[in-house]
């Protein structure tokens, strides 16, 4: 039924830790010269982004997903040891793996907290040609304070719990302070240095990302072309409303296709192919296959 190929690969951080990678690509026909690297949001696994991969592949893109180390998913490490810096290293490793495999600069598609890492990686390397983020976090301290109901930057805790997953407080906080992850200013710093086109989708019903922060981050002497698309009545979890998710996919693909000088409109993958792929991936994540 499906017209895409799905493969499992892996890469490693410099210290040897394994990062699981999944690729999804058109089974036949031309592949656009801009692979997509999809960075899942915090506490989300590769399989949650199966629709992004399927929409991308059905529109001619080679799509790469990965699970960060010390995170949920099938890469090395546990969520307990999660840090923002290791999440960033994981994205960087996925970008490098994709660039080395294809010889092409990538478009990073990142959601939520991983958007912050995407802005930083884009500022650091020309292996990133373009960035598209959804409900992207720009002010880590403010967003985490909203998520947890407490500002851990100023009021530290031994452990934080997110969706039932425990995170080592001192380890996370030490990294966040030391590597300057907290502030809006740190995000602006990287957005000013990143020359690539960057588009962000914000949700007007997103309780965790303040549109004013996004506007401030994107408007302060931007390093390259910037777009802010405001998805009306979209929550932080875009997948919750399939109509919102589909709108995001199609607008994202419109931009990516235009960047590849393709004038055709994006198409939807067949519903049943989406279901089939989603179940295959869930079973892999669960260890059934």
């Amino acid at each position: 039924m499906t017209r895409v190929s799905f493969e499992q690969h892996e890469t490693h951080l410099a210290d040897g830790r394994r990062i699981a990678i999944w690729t999804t690509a058109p089974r036949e026909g031309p592949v656009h010269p801009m692979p997509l690297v999809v960075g899942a949001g915090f506490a989300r696994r590769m399989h949650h982004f199966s629709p992004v991969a399927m929409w991308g592949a059905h529109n001619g893109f080679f799509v790469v997903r990965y699970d960060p180390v010390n995170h949920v998913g099938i890469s090395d490490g546990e969520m307990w040891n999660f840090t923002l810096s290791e999440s960033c290293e994981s994205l960087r490793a996925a970008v490098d793996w994709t660039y080395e495999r294809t010889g092409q600069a990538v478009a990073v598609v990142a959601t939520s907290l991983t958007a912050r890492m995407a802005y930083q990686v884009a500022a650091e390397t020309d292996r990133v040609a373009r960035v598209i983020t959804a409900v992207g976090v720009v002010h880590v301290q403010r967003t985490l304070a909203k998520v947890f109901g407490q500002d851990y930057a100023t009021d530290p805790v031994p452990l934080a719990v997110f969706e039932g997953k425990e995170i080592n407080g001192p380890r996370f906080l030490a990294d966040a302070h030391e590597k300057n992850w907290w502030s809006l200013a740190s995000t602006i710093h990287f957005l000013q240095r990143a020359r690539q086109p960057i588009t962000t989708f914000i949700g007007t019903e997103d309780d965790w990302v303040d549109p004013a922060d996004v506007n401030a981050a994107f408007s302060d002497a931007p390093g390259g072309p910037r777009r802010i698309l405001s998805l009306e009545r979209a929550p932080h979890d875009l997948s919750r409303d399939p109509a919102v998710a589909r709108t995001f996919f199609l607008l994202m693909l419109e931009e990516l296709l235009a960047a590849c000088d393709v004038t055709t409109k994006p198409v939807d993958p067949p519903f049943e192919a989406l279901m089939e792929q989603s179940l295959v991936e869930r079973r892999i994540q669960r260890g059934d296959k």
Partner: protein
Amino acid sequence: MTAEVVRAVAAPPVVERIAVAATTDLDHLIAGEAVFATPLAEQHAMRDHHVRRTLAHHLERCAAYAAFAARRQFTDLPADLAAIPVIPSSVFKAARVLSVDEAEIAKWCKSSGTQGAQSMIGRDRTSLERLLGSIRAGVTLIQDWLEDDLEVIHLGPDRSEAGDVWFMYVMSLIELLYPTRHFVRGGVFDAAGALDRIRALAGKRDRHVAVVGPPFRVLELIETIERAGQPVPGGTGMTVLTAGGWKRFSGQRIERAAFDPRVCAAFGLASEAQVRDAFNQVELNTVMIECAAHRKHVPPWLYAAARDPDRLTVLPPGQVGVMSYLDASATSYPSFIVTDDVGEVHEGTCACGRAGTTLQIQRRLVSVAQRGCALTLDSGGKK
């Protein structure tokens, strides 16, 4: 694409700002976190609005439904919901009734059709996504579990084996929401395997366990447990969710009043509130799930009414009649149906504390051989 892109405020040179209408009122409602938490009057207002909009869509796009409405001399708009023509669900056995081009159909869905003709319902992407949304919303009546909080033991086949048979297909979709293991393979129910897995999960107690299947399969599993002589230590960490109808293949009715205590005893459940039933039929695009008070809550995009069986007039809440539905969530076909089920509708505050419309299905109107979706499973073998 359907989203309307509106160029907004002129921006500084390199920052472009665009506002996008990303969803519809109805999709926003179905995806919302408070589907069953709004006051009754608000639910009615939303329901009336969405059903009327969907009525206009079907009158415009479905020639068969428009002709049916014309024959019923239905012209009043905006319509009193009780006056909107309802199609006998058996019509879908004889004709493919569509409100979209056939090319837009993502899945043809078949009723179980244990004997005789089968209903064929064409669903487009929007209808299927909204159906999934109704399951997600309905599950919150049990509990709003996160993905990793729950493991499902499904006493049926996976999606590939379920094929186009509606009831089995719908039940298999729970795997899209929660980690799920299926225990019917090649038409054979692996009761021992299901029980082993349930016992293993009950022992770990690191997540909630949902045993999901048609009542007759649950009874088969109970018989396996009873033969072993050792109840499952389910406690408060397990829910048994049934769907698919309350008859065995033999035609013998499974009595709910006796079923729940037996489930509780076999699975060691702390309360009968942990036994829930779900209702759907292939012509209906919404799945309704029971609350703790064992009432099936009707979401605010669906008008459910019991009707006088002879004149099809809508009966007041609490009176028993043939069940009918105006389901605004289906775009590809008019899910404006009168069914073969006998039941009653209630309005007000449920014993669970939620305001809204609830329904209870009592029995089938006719006693011919069409005995419900669950029976296609009941005819399978055992392991």
